[in-house]
């Protein structure tokens, strides 16, 4: 066990954890933020995606120690009142069905749009192919990413 400081959504949390515990479980069970989801535990589904220093990572496959003292952003940190452009686009396009995969999808889309404000279909495929949606919301995810790009351009 080790005492670890996590910087989650600009807030510091000191936790006592097995340093090998995946960041996912530290965020969910120890800090208590449940927007980040468990889907596979082996970096196959993307449900657990968070930003580590601005880059999308699979929190199920990163030991919590690796994230210590670094900036981690979860879905709750994107914006809690849905003011973020990706969240707005997701609402406009009515993307979620069950909604379980959507935190991960939105975090991935948000990282994509930061590096490519006007992504092509290929860019979208590349950035989103690691994310499973069992409800099959893929057509709307694609539309919502394009919508978010439009909204960003209008700003």
């Amino acid at each position, binding site marked *: *066990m080790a005492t670890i400081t996590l910087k989650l959504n600009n807030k510091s949390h000191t936790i006592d954890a*097995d340093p090998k*515990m*995946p960041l996912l*479980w530290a965020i*969910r*069970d*120890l800090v*208590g*933020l*449940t*927007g*980040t*989801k*468990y*889907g*596979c*535990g*082996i970096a*196959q*589904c993307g*449900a657990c995606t968070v930003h580590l220093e601005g880059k999308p990572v699979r929190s199920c496959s990163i030991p919590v120690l690796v994230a210590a003292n670094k900036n981690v952003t*979860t*879905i*709750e940190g*994107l*914006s*809690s*009142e*849905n003011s973020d452009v990706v*969240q707005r686009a*997701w*609402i406009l396009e*009515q*993307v*979620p*069905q*069950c*909604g*379980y*995969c*959507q*935190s991960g999808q*939105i975090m991935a889309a948000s990282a994509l749009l930061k590096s490519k404000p006007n992504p092509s279909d290929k860019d*979208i*495929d590349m950035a*989103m*192919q690691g*994310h*499973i*949606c*069992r*409800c*099959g*919301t*893929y*057509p*709307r*995810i*694609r539309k919502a990413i394009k919508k978010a790009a439009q909204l960003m351009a209008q700003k």
Partner: protein
Amino acid sequence: METTDRNLSRRNFIKISGLTGTALTLGIGFSASGKDMAIVRASSAETTSIEVNAWISIDTQGKVTIVNHRSEMGQGSFQSVPQMIAEELEVSLDQVNIVFAPGNGRKYGSQVTGGSSTIRGSYQKLLRLGASARHMLVETAAKRWGVAAGDCYAENGEVIHKASGKKLNYGDLVAEAAKLEPPKEVTLKNPKDYKIIRKPLPRKDTPIKVNGKAIFGLDFKLPGMLFAVVERSPRFQGKVVKFDDSETRKVPGVKFVLKVNRDEFDNMREGVAVVATNTWAAIQGRKVLKVDWDDSAFLHHNSEELYAKMRELVKGDPISFRTMGNTAKTFAKAEKKVEATYETPYESHSCMEPLNCVANVTDDKCEIWGPIQGPDWIQQNICGHLKLPPEKVIVNMTFLGGGFGRKAFTDYPYEAVMISKEIKAPVQVVWTREDDMTIGPFRPGMVYQCKGVVTEGGRIGSFETKISGQNMDLQNPGADKSAYNSSDTEGFLEGYFNSIPHYSFGDSPLDSPVPVMWWRSVYASTNAFAFESFLDELAVKAEKDPLDFRRQHLGERYQLLIDKLETVSNWKARKRNEGLPAEASAKVGYGVAITECFSSIVGEVVKVSKDSEGKIKIEKVWAVMDCGWYVNPDIIKAQIEGSIIMALGAATKHETTFNDGKAVERNFDSYKMPRIQDTPEIEVHIMDNEEKAGGVGEPALPPFTPALTNAIFDLTGKRIRKLPFSLDAIE
């Protein structure tokens, strides 16, 4: 006891809806026979001998609360139930609050969210409920103004007097309206006048599903709650001989290790639970747990053996379900005939949210929270096992991260309850993805032997299907194994039974220890592949256009759907190479399939092309759904898109296989899912008519796969008769 239960329910209801002041609370009452229905006031519901179904309430602020008695697993009941009531009540959706109801079959009727039944099972009741409240409010306002009720109307949460334009808010009227007897007869709105129904209104649960606030089962926490994972027998019916937890107990955070049972179709299955202060510690503790299993009492199949057995079984005499004429004789003496065998795989539900459940058993009661499709079933099951009356077993629904049939099952809540009871603490049982994928129950795989005859005139002379596979109803101890399976025809259009002179559907059930259960669209998810592929084979034999071939056997409602499908997909003008670069040696193929499932008819056309490397690409899918009366076209569209993509996975990506009595595919690295880049363009159309409401969440799944394989046949001449297949490997 009856009265106690109702009083308690009433108290619960007021507690959860947080009403302000006096409220008008209406429910649907059923007579004991279940045949009559009346709108009743909550107060009268307590004192007379009627059961009360879904409730609406209006408080003195004009706020409307509706109890959703069904679960929300993505299919949209959270939106469509209030959308129906708000229409007849004449309130805008912003004025409506919706809460989930706890499991209570005595109060709400069936709460099992299955069979695409939320709307089709209750829409007329819900509309009448809204209309009754509206009538009572209008009458109250009219009385207060001293005018005739017919001179007033309701709009946007207010009653308005036509002549003077005077207005009164529902909140001002509700206390008085609540004293009226609900009307015996109500007039429902003409669909032409709908303002909310039929509109693609945004879902009320979307905002909390894009910012992490929606609470799924796995997100639900209680103070002092512990976390458990369970090592369950990797072969389906293994019993625990002994276990060694000496290493497990050394893992920091591990609190308890205990044997636990799971109720699987009334059979007790065994496991060893590791309970810890967090999920990860429990998983770590389980890794070093050693369990000896006794697997001697049942067969350890592999997939080849299961399918070899099914192929044998279809040759024998089936238990007949539905027959007409004499298919054997017709086939024997026919000139033009076709015979084919189709095979479908076992599948895992693999909801994105793995199974989980929170239970808290205390000395005098048991409370459960989780992603649950059948809260009333679970309540019944736990009451039976714990010998508790229903009011002591409270089953609460969270949002479900997918359900697809798996979460209607009672095993996982039962297991959580047993652990909590034993350790005397609230506990969350978490199934890892590997548990979720390997323990089952699974969608059963099937083998179909089809024999058909084409007449001189190019019609179907005879249609015979023998099915082999596991019958989901035969798993409980003491089940009658000679009973026919009434799902043998699921997926087949009812219309064909009126026009095919000789038909026969029957099954020879396979006996296997693999647990099986409903999977989105149930038997139709596998039957349709056989039926609609075989119809295509018959159309080829008859040398007829596949749409015309179907059309000539079907009545008007089907014909309208076929006409629509033909128009939107530009079927008649479909040409090779259309829209593709001339230099490509690629061609295109078109396939169609039409199926019926949970009272809705869906036709789909798939267009495919082939690239220079021989890979098949799905260019486009057109879907036309006739679900009769419907509520929200955008939710329907989403359900059709999702159904098609789920079918695409089962057709071309994944299957569960077995080796040595264990499921082989354990996670998404081997059980491959369709991804965003695999998703074709999907165009959706909904038929407008006033037929009874049909299901929406499942019926678009069955036709996709046969439409795809029929299109591949059209393009390549290769008939695919076994699923799954790879789009990359068609010669």
